[in-house]
């Protein structure tokens, strides 16, 4: 039992493992500065997970923000050459938590792939998402494709507010609510049934593609299905198929996300621990004509997983007689620690100490293993 596994808590270990995983696949670490100008986030507010930005004023009176997001900073600085850009990061982001009325500092680990994206690259991202969660335990990845939504909603005569409401109802799998809204807004029956049909598609990726194909109604959705099929075939070769779910209730802002979008879930954690998607539209806004896809993981959510009840405080408890020579006790401690075990030495018993085994040291220095 190595000391690392016992000293570092679950999310710290995960971060270490994720870093090694991403380096292995050729991603380089990106380190960002603490403060970006507030304008950057204001101009791209709907790209942010949480709309409210925490501001600070610098000595020159400029309005800066405590970063709520990393992707925008990466996209802002895409080098003109040396694409594809494959970077990962481990950073803290700051959000205003309306639930508890406090500012929260959250660790976010993520990666971005910017450049030309072929099926191999898209599959690599999804496989990395799967491997990221596999480290922790039983997981599922829910995949969707914004192409289905942009094709339907870009061509329908509804105001932005109603389109937003439609997407929210789809996010909540609210069939009856969507039906009522479509009736109220006199949405064309063909379009309404397509939207309702999208909610109904939720199942294993490999097996649900056939049903999704029935909802194809134009070039964009045709291309989307092709992409999903090729990706499905690719990840199937790695026996990951039963972890991937085709779920159109997963959507993201249409102004930025144009293709694959996905969320990762761990068994026992009530919210998604991973969130990702293809955001070509955002990259284009910054004047670059390449594509981009990425995802972020929130290790602190692992705190919501049930901890094992039999976790020990220490592997070894040394109970030494007060007459023992101090150096002999310390020598024994060092020997045990060299073995990779955690050790506590006390001259009396303590109630409630959770240890693996006990060693008693007598006044003459002899030891008894209990």
């Amino acid at each position, binding site marked *: 039992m190595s000391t690392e596994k016992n000293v570092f808590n679950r999310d710290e270990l995960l971060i270490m493992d994720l870093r090694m995983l991403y380096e292995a696949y050729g991603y380089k670490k990106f380190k960002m500065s603490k403060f970006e100008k507030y304008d950057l986030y204001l101009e791209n507010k709907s790209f942010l997970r949480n709309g409210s930005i925490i501001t600070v004023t610098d000595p020159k009176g400029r309005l800066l923000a405590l970063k709520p997001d990393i992707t925008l900073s990466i996209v802002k600085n895409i080098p003109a050459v040396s694409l594809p850009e494959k970077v990962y990061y481990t950073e803290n982001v700051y959000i205003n938590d309306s639930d508890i009325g406090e500012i929260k500092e959250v660790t976010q680990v993520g990666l971005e792939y910017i450049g030309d994206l072929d099926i191999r690259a898209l599959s690599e991202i999804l496989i990395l998402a799967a491997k990221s969660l596999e480290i922790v335990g039983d997981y599922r990845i*829910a995949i969707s494709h914004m192409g289905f939504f942009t094709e339907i909603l870009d061509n329908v005569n509804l105001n932005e507010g109603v389109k937003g409401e439609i997407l929210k109802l789809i996010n909540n*799998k609210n069939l009856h*609510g969507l039906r009522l809204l479509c009736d109220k807004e006199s949405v064309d029956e063909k379009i309404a049934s397509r939207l309702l049909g999208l909610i109904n598609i939720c*199942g294993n990726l490999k097996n649900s593609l056939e049903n999704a194909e029935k909802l194809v109604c134009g070039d964009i959705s045709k291309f989307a299905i092709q992409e999903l099929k090729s990706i499905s075939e690719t990840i199937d070769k790695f026996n990951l198929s039963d972890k991937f779910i085709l779920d159109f209730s997963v959507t993201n802002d249409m102004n930025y996300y144009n293709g694959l979008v996905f969320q990762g*879930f761990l068994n*026992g954690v009530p*919210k998604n621990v991973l969130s990702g998607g293809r955001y070509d539209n955002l990259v284009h806004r910054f004047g670059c004509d390449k594509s981009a896809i990425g995802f972020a993981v929130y290790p602190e959510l692992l705190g919501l997983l049930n901890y094992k009840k039999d976790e020990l405080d220490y592997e070894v408890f040394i109970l030494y007689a007060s007459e023992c020579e101090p150096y002999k006790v310390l020598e024994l401690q060092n020997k045990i620690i060299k073995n990779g075990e955690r050790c506590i030495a006390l001259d009396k018993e303590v109630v409630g100490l959770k240890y693996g085994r006990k060693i008693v040291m007598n006044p003459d220095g002899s030891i008894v293993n209990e």
Partner: protein
Amino acid sequence: MSDYINIALPKGRLGEKVYSLFESIGYGCPDLLDGGRKLIFENPQNKVRYFWAKPSDVAIYVERGAADIGVVGKDILLEYSPDVYELCDLGFGKCRMAVAGKKGVRIPTDKKLRVATKFSNIAWDYYSKQSRDIEIIKLNGSIEIAPLLDLSDVIVDIVETGTTLKENGLEPFETICDISARLVANKSAYKFKSENIDKLLAATMGFVSEKQR
């Protein structure tokens, strides 16, 4: 234990009605209606676990994964917007959210409207869509007396038969929306227990549409 479906039921009349629906579609639990103070019940045969919760808390249990599914009123969903799937309108507990005020009294348009309510988010959303500036007085119960004591001009509250309002000299002016009991599910649990949850959902929807005929 993790192949059980955990269901949060709202304490009270609605919860009992919902339970008898689940019982009739095969998800019964023998000790549940025995009375007493027990709050958690399980049935190893059909692998279902129930617990009673305060109606306004059911959504929190489901959102945080303590329950996989739950039944909660649309009023709670609209007020707190929990991040959960809303899978089915069960059709019971039917009532509506309405604006009400003293009978025959004109609603002032020349000053800020004072609205007393338990549902401050619902009231806020409703009036902001009308671009109406309001002052919200958040109360927790017996909202009907607020306009009678001139604490507010109107109230936003749940109306069933309208009898309580009538007895207090109030009348409903505008309906904000219809309310009824909804079946909600935790988004993460749904990924891992989809087969079991879908089975329960299908049986529930079958029962509900039969009843509506």
